[in-house]
């Protein structure tokens, strides 16, 4: 028989072994020395030590995916609306300079009572507060109606409206007057109707309550609509109002920190080739953009494009004898913009672009209007607006070469209006500061909801895709988002809407950043057979000798151990 090298018996009986081999005429290698066996054991052990203590950790380290811990449950709760129930307490100051204190107190109480009775949407309610320094504060309000929008600091609730109650001779019933560019509502009442503390429901307080209800009716419906998703918000809202609200939400742009406004002058001929655009923007648009400052920022670019033709698919304008004008049919307006050829996608900056097009028709087709209502402008939802400018022709029947600031006035006023519409400003009440305030509250609601739902999306994503990495900055963005969301919620609860919008903006930004984190792209999916195919050519040749060597060593050690035990 042949003796295996490493057999524990062989070194002990060399003579007999040699004689045996001699007799069987087979030559065997000389027996291994114990040192050689020892060396081989060490070599194998060293290989395995490197594999186990170096190779395996490195493999583990380099192939594992870093997943930062995220507060999944909290994120899901935000998305489900369990953490925060947005409420809108609007603080309204009432000033009654010519009423006695108990009378005004009583008026306030009864008005508040009537208001609460009228209100059916608990999340949005009006809180009245009596002020005494009437003339002062009212004057200040008149003065700084726009700057009150910017009052983000301070712990006190924002005053959304000041109601001044004034007597006026010769009135049969109370009347109200909303000062158009302020946040002040003047209510005039006949002196005979001074509410005495005894009457439980004076007509004046009913009147004030109804006026306030009317002022904030649209805002309330809008917020209810947003909070309830796309389903009908309030029962009492007229279907007309619901329709107009959902239409406005549909056509308005998604909220962005920065919008890019692009003003383009298109004309099919060679003139007009210049316009007083800088002055026009400064004069007609800057005030509005400044009023929007607490909500969004804007960047502006302009261009003049000559020889801009309609696309061949656009139906040509038709001359209308009775109107003495070239008319475009309303249903053809969607094809008016030649998307294929007009360079309208500057893609500058990082905000979404709102396009405003000033089209000066060819003299042979001037004046050009919309057939149905002789309008000269229209809005393309979520995209921008178009204005047809028909400047007076020169003597030689050509368009003027230069458009002065004055001739641009109507166009830029219209663009301002279109901008208001596209940014989702509500149409009532009839005071721009009030409408912007409403927009702040509406935007705060939408941002709160969208940031919360992004949190939920991220939570579900991390659960459903175990192979994508989650870097640490995602976790920090998430915690920033969550803290700003709760700040938004508490600001809303305390009636500080500017502060609420500011933190909602941060929350939205951070939420987007965490979801769209650049490194969070999952490793490309490999089926298991691919993995085997990758590893086998490498591990096969290396693994077989290593494993066989290990097995032999283990066998030898076992045999040695058994022999020892037998000997003992």
């Amino acid at each position: 028989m042949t003796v295996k090298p490493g057999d524990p018996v062989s070194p002990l009986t060399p003579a007999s072994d040699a004689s045996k081999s001699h007799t069987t005429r087979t030559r065997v290698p000389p027996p291994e020395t114990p040192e050689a066996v020892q060396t081989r054991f060490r070599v194998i052990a060293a290989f395995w030590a490197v594999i186990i203590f170096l190779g395996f950790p490195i493999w583990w380290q380099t192939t594992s995916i870093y997943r930062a811990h995220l507060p999944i449950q909290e994120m899901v709760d935000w998305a489900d609306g369990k953490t925060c129930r947005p409420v809108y307490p609007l603080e309204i100051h009432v000033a009654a300079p010519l009423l006695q204190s108990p009378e005004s107190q009583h008026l306030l109480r009864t008005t508040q009572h009537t208001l609460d009775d009228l209100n059916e949407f608990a999340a949005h309610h009006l809180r009245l507060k009596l002020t005494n320094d009437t003339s002062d504060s009212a004057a200040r309000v008149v003065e700084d109606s726009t700057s009150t929008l910017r009052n983000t600091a301070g712990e006190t609730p924002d005053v959304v409206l000041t109601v001044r109650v004034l007597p006026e001779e010769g009135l049969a019933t109370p009347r109200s007057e909303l000062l158009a560019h302020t946040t002040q509502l003047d209510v005039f009442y006949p002196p005979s109707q001074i509410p005495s503390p005894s009457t439980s429901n004076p007509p004046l307080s009913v009147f004030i309550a109804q006026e306030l209800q009317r002022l904030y009716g649209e805002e309330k419906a809008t917020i209810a609509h947003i909070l309830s998703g796309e389903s009908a918000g309030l029962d009492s809202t007229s279907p007309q109002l619901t329709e107009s609200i959902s239409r406005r939400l549909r056509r308005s742009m998604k909220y962005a920190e920065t919008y890019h406004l692009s003003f383009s002058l298109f004309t099919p001929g060679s003139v007009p080739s210049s316009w007083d655009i800088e002055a026009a923007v400064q004069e007609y648009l800057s005030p509005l953009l400044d009023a929007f400052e607490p909500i969004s920022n804007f960047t502006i670019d302009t261009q003049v494009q000559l020889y801009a033709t309609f696309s061949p698919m656009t139906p040509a304008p038709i001359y209308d004898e009775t109107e003495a004008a070239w008319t475009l049919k309303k249903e053809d307006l969607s094809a008016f913009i030649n998307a294929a050829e007009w360079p309208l996608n500057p893609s500058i900056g990082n905000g979404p672009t709102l396009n405003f097009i000033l089209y000066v028709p060819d003299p042979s087709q001037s004046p050009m209007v919309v057939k149905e209502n002789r309008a000269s402008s229209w809005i393309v939802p979520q995209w921008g607006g178009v204005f047809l400018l028909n400047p007076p022709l020169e003597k030689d029947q050509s368009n003027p070469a230069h458009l002065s600031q004055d001739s641009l006035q109507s166009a830029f006023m219209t663009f301002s209006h279109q901008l208001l519409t596209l940014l989702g400003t509500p149409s009532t009440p009839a005071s721009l500061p009030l409408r912007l305030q409403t927009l702040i509250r509406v935007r705060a609601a939408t941002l709160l909801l969208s940031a919360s739902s992004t949190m939920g999306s991220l939570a579900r994503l991390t659960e459903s895709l175990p192979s994508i990495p989650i870097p640490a900055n995602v976790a920090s963005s998430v915690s920033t988002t969550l803290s700003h969301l709760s700040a938004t919620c508490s600001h809303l609860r305390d009636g500080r809407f500017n502060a609420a919008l500011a933190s909602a903006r941060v929350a939205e930004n951070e939420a987007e950043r965490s979801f769209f984190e650049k490194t969070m792209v999952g490793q490309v999916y490999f089926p298991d057979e691919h993995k085997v195919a990758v590893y086998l050519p490498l591990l096969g040749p290396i693994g077989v000798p290593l494993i066989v060597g290990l097995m032999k060593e283990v066998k030898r050690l076992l045999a040695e151990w058994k022999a020892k035990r037998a000997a003992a």
Partner: protein
Amino acid sequence: MISFLRLLQALSLLLLAGFIVAEHTSNWAVLVSTSRFWFNYRHLANVLSLYRTVKRLGIPDSQIILMLPDDMACNPRNAFPGTVYSNADRAVDLYGDNIEVDYRGYEVTVENFIRLLTDRLDEDVPRSKRLGSDAGSNVLVYMTGHGGDQFLKFQDAEEIGAWDLADAFGQMWEKKRYHELLFMIDTCQANTMYTHFYSPNIVATGSSELDQSSYSHHADNDVGVAVIDRWTYYVLEFLETQVTSANSKLNLGDLFDSYDESKIHSQPGVRWDLFPGGEAEGRLRTVVDFFGNVQNVEVENANTTEPGSLKEDLAEIARLAEKWRKRSEEYSSILGNSTKPQPENQHSPAAHLTPKKAVGPTKMAEDNSWGKRLVGLSVVGACTAIWVAGSVLGASSA
């Protein structure tokens, strides 16, 4: 209490909000060719033909993401330099003078494609290279190239698996990046690519079953290679001859019914089950819901006086502008009084409109250069002194 309950109910409905949205508000198209090299001319022609069609139906360039891994128009083997044709009659030059390629050459990778869909891009990537779709967007995704069972090859170097694509769409749905999505793919064994999709509101269609090849339609002998694939050719034939205007009422059912296996030489497939309402509902979506662009323009009536109408707004904006002018006048007059009187500013009401001064170039480095020069000069001086001293000493010792 009732209103509180209603609010709770409303909040619970929030989750469902995405499903209730009735109509889409914008259209996006992602058109991807994945193969390089001259002999794959037809794949670029496929994509460019579709690009031309969606543009014709009104999707602006800013809402089309076009990925072309090679530039056939400028290929030295192109007998018609600067042009790409998808038909041997060479009637329509697809390259034209107005095409916007968003991802070109080696930018077309699996990673970039997935990043595009999920918008996980660097902050400095321009908007034209981003898919800016939202919860109201209908997205058309068209891919063509060489593929196999559950993969599509990108650029001869890598491949995208059906799983990756499904996960990318899943993430898009999770972040409300589409309203409805039409996925079209023309490659060998194309139908295997959409088998793993799991997110709702997707209609998927492919050119060939498992173990089937997709064939090219015809070759142009002068160009020297096949110019278009069969399935794409017949889809385009339908779109070009039937869907002639953006107001077309033809629906997806009509499009898919137009598939003729005897012409296409493979079995095209359609997957409906992810679409709410399944096939019955999905067939009713019009073709221009995905290939066209919605534009429900709203004409403003200049004569109505209801709140929020044009007239009212104009009055308010005019008031705002007026107030601003007054304020800036006051401001400038205060400035004028406090410093020195500026008579030329007094009479012009638009004093604040003085054109901005052009900003000249400024130096970016802020450290003081003279100090550095001094240091450098002294170092040079010291070295020279040492050298001189050394040579003098060396000369004297020798």
